[in-house]
């Protein structure tokens, strides 16, 4: 039984949320540290003895928690972010009338997220999803009288409920298809997929798209700065991953549905490029970070759609850690904007420099990819395509050092950072693949559909990367003024959403 103790981390948090003596800001931090310790011990136990399972009941009402490799990573991540957030909020919210309620709701929300990522059965998963939505909805209304907060919370609830409904339907179909509510059993029996399972995969993809704030349902995420900074950190580092996690959890079911996978690639890829371009136009730091999350989640869904599950998990973890820090440290933006001006003008790379940068990046990629292939074996074409996209990004860094006006020392430094970034990326990727071998499936064999998607992804990301590198040459051209405005407004998807849902109406003042 003591081996199963880690599974009680959500219970610990939920108890603390309801016991006044435990939910003072200082004790809540201690409780979250306890949850982190449980999560870590669960990960260790999982490695030593295999998955931990706790179950109760049977049939469709099976209640089960399960920690396997995927859950171990996610519970540690969530508990860690939870600790950072509660520790931050302890000081940040001092003197706020709502601090007590905030602390309790945060504990309860963390409990729900932990339950979600260690769910072993469909019912637990559905309940945890609903619990996360309810908790975040309350946190968004930290200042209940703010009309903008009411708007954001209402929008978030609408999308969350649609996602919950999609998940509920998917779960019913899965139970119908496989006759079990045990998620691990569903995964094991995924292939061959009954027709109901294909529909379930489509609904899971829909739920993931809604939960990950993908175009055109992204508006709720870009407006939630109406809640205190720690809520943003929790949302962008803990909660937003739920969609991606859902796909990872049901990876075998998803892989059996190539149509759903293709849809994820296209929508995720589009949202990634769309969000990335919108982010360029955002002058407010938290808003830019929110758009960045939209883009990063799109990229993660693209990876899921290509069947790069381990890479998607790496992306979830890396993005969560980065984004939690970025939000919590966003007060430093005044200093960083000032600091960026001090060393003088930026050297703008010309077309020649950009071409050189991409050539060098491709060579760098070939060398590093070859090295890793020799070390740990051949890679799937999906993996290589992703690597190419990442290297397009590195080319942008190189291009800055290759600008004619850039001194040699700057070229040397940016080149060094480019090599380090490439090595780090492939190192983490290899590590993630190694850790998740056996837990998450391999990418599917690339058929014509997969190859078409790969080519589409590489070409579109490549085109945007080149445009980005040449950005100073066209960004302020009168011909692009309209494009800038439309992108800055997120192509009006959110405004349309507002119009349809009454977001422009005067709000009731409470």
């Amino acid at each position, binding site marked *: 039984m003591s081996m199963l103790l880690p599974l009680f981390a959500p219970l610990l948090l939920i108890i603390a949320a309801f016991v006044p003596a435990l939910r003072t800001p200082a004790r809540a931090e201690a409780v979250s540290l306890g949850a982190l310790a449980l999560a870590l011990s669960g990960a260790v136990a999982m490695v030593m003895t295999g998955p931990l399972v706790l179950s109760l009941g049977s049939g469709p009402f099976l209640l089960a928690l399960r920690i396997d490799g995927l859950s171990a990573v996610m519970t540690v991540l969530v508990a860690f972010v939870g600790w*950072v957030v509660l520790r931050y909020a302890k000081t940040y919210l001092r003197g706020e009338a709502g601090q007590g309620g905030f602390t309790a709701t945060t504990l309860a929300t963390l409990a729900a997220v932990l339950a979600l990522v260690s769910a072993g059965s469909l019912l637990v998963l559905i309940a945890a999803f609903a619990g996360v939505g309810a908790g975040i909805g309350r946190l968004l209304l930290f200042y209940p009288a703010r009309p903008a907060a009411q708007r954001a919370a209402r929008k978030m609830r609408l999308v969350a409920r649609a996602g919950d409904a999609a998940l509920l339907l998917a779960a019913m179909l899965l139970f119908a298809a496989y006759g079990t509510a045990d998620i691990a059993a569903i995964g094991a029996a995924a292939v061959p997929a009954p027709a109901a399972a294909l529909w379930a995969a489509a609904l899971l993809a829909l739920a993931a798209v809604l939960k990950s704030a993908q175009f055109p349902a992204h508006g709720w995420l870009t407006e939630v700065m109406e809640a205190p900074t720690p809520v943003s950190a929790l949302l962008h580092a803990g909660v937003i991953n739920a969609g991606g996690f859902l796909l990872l959890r049901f990876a075998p079911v998803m892989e059996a549905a190539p149509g759903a996978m293709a849809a994820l690639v296209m929508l995720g890829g589009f949202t990634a490029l769309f969000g990335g371009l919108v982010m360029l136009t955002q002058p407010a730091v938290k808003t830019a970070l929110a758009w960045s999350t939209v883009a990063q989640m799109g990229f993660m869904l693209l990876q899921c759609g290509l069947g790069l599950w381990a890479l998607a998990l790496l992306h979830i973890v890396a993005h969560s850690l980065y984004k939690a820090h970025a939000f919590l440290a966003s007060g430093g933006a005044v200093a960083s904007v000032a600091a960026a001006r001090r060393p003088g003008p*930026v050297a703008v790379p010309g077309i020649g420099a950009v071409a050189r940068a991409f050539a060098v990046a491709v060579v760098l990629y070939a060398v590093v990819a070859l090295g890793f292939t020799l070390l740990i074996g051949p890679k799937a074409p999906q993996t290589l395509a992703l690597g190419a996209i990442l290297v397009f990004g590195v080319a942008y860094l190189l291009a800055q050092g290759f600008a004619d006006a850039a001194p040699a020392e700057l070229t040397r430094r940016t080149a060094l950072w480019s090599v380090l970034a490439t090595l780090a990326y492939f190192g983490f990727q290899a590590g993630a693949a190694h850790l998740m071998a056996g837990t998450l499936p391999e990418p599917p064999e690339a058929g014509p559909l997969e190859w078409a998607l790969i080519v589409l992804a590489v070409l579109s990301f490549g085109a945007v990367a080149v445009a980005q590198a040449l950005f100073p040459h066209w960004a302020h051209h009168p011909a692009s003024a309209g494009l800038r405005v439309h992108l800055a407004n997120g192509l009006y998807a959110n405004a349309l959403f507002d119009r349809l849902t009454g977001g422009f109406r005067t709000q009731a003042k409470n």
Partner: protein
Amino acid sequence: MFITPQKIEPQGHASLLAAAEAAVRAIPPAFPLEATVAVNPYLGQTGLTLAATGARLARVAGAPVTAPRALHAGMIAAGAITKGDLQAALVACAHPARPASVADLITGAGAPAPMRVPLPTVADLAATASGTDWPAIIAERLGAWAAAYFDRGQALWTPAPGLSAYASWRQWAVHDLTPELAGLPGFAARVAAAPDTPERAIAAATGALGLADGACETAFHRLLMGLGGWAQHARYLLWQAELQGGTDSAASDLLAIRLTWEDALLAAYPGIGGDWAAVAQAHGEPVEPDAAMILDTILQEAAERAAQRRLKGVLDGAVPAQAAAARPGLQAAFCIDVRSEVFRRALEAQGAGIETIGFAGFFGLPLSHRGFASDVAEAHLPVLLSPAMHSHSAAPVAVAADARFAARAARAIGRFRQAAVSSFAFVEAAGPFYAGKLVRDALGLAGKLPGPDAAPALDTALTPAQKQATAAAVLKAMSMTGGFAPLVLILGHGANVTNNPHASALHCGACGGYTGEVSARLLAILLNDPEARAGLGAQGIDLPADTHFLAGLHDTTTDTVTLFPDTPATSHADAIAAARRDLAAAGAMARAERSLRLPGATPDTVAARALNWAETRPEWGLAGCQAFIAAPRAATLGRDLQGRAFLHNYDWQADAGFATLELILTAPVVVASWISLQYYGSALAPETFGGGTKLLHNVVGGIGVVEGNGGTLRAGLPWQSVHDGTAPAHEALRLSVMIEAPTEAIDAILARHAGVRALFDNRWLHLFTLVGGRMAQRYVPKGWETA
């Protein structure tokens, strides 16, 4: 010239543009947070009394200008405001609508104060009529454009540079589909067809809105107030341009933009025409305070008189006699900032031979400084002045070049992180490392002191004559003409905070929102320079050869002092070591005293707040400031002024021709009034003049903050800077200025400076003379009366 008049403008526009200019000048400037300083939010109303200002701000913003009536009623009931205070305040009010007696005043204080609601805009009326939240939509749309237009480097893709605000907005608005989606069809086409100059746009919209000449000024003021910090930032651009002899049109452009919206909404909702006509009529009425406003300003005055009465008790009270040393062993010059008062008292308590001096923290050097590895010249001086000396960090060339390459590489990585496509590579390559950063910052382990910067140096060395003149001028202004200690510390100050957009608001206001380090170091270097010292005797300054000057920086968050031994002084090694011990002991005392006011602090945890990235109240800044005292330190020595007083050393008997007094009244007093009134406005009218809550702050464009998603820029002090969560941290009182000098000398100076005199006549400041450190005379517009 404010708006460039176009030759082709019809004559009728002149009065319109004058009203637009008056409305723009009624808005206070908001300095960018990169180097922000306190600004008097009533800067445009200093020619009016508080009551008249209250009437105007009620009309254009609904903002109160006095503390809540219930607070004053409570103070009367508790005896904190006495009948004597009320009587004196009542007598001081000359308005015909004042209450007849103290009894009426007390009765009035018990009655509820009327709600002050600003006159509605067309957008307000349209919202009521249609149920569409037009004011919020306009705030959001205007904010989306303005944030990008005024951006100083946050976004990679800014609007095309080089356009005026009006032209840039039109380029935005003709493409923006949002207003049409929100329910205003044809708005983009309307903007496309709008006049091509802001002047004509103002004229066209004013005509369409049916605003008569006399109604324009407050109607315009109303619209600009509705733009909050954006109007104030634009007003800052005008301020800076005028300081350099130019002009800027951004503020009047904003007015033209906002009027274009009003015009479009009135056209879209013709049904509100009647209501709007009544509003336009009301804008034409004269702005007069009503009896309730008069009552509130009298209560406010009474509260200030009560505070002055308590201060008089402190100044008149007995203090233990202090044996004055024949020659002090250590002198330390601090900024007049109220935070120095606590530290000065603590330092003086370390020994009888320690003297402290108060002077504006830029130490009289009007510097423009380029920092280490930086191309950016930063103005380290009060914002009322223009730089006249240029300096730079004199670090070795190789070291600076290396730092510069590192900064440029870091900037390239920052763009790599931010750009499309490359941001994905960044996250997967660097994201995992942020686990370590999270732990480091959560535990406050990021020590961020890379060691002191290299000594500053002037770009063009001064000639010996210039050095002597500068040294003599500064020492005389500091009233330091003799009695020098062997070691004199020149201490600037700065705050030490983490992750705080408002960090510069905690730095030295006299240094333009930077720390005082550069100013203090340059002055110490100058005063140690034999060429500068050679001629001081001839100027009446008796500076012993063994006096050494040493610069330092007082960290107001942690109360530690860093010394900068830029001039070698082996002869003073022992004295410096002793000074370090005294400063450390004084720091501990000061921290203990400050910990009582800081929520959640103990003497041992005060310093850790500097490194806590979640701390919204690392220190109190100048909260609580209520008095400015210019007198010899003997007048205040040993008296506990609780960190609420600006202390400026001044000895009128040594001030030939009262030149120093004139400097004090026209510079430090004005700066102190800006600080005190900023706290006053941010505390009393947080929605209008406050910076909002830090919990929702979203830094925009590197210049300021918005609350939440976007919308209106929030200038002024955040709520956390004036409130501790349970009680206000700043009692909103207009500053009491106390000068130890003859009334005739003060009168003569006020007669020459009408702007300064208006501050006292309209009671934005109270003015007293001191005699032997005791409050003697109170200034009233008619003359002086016994305090």
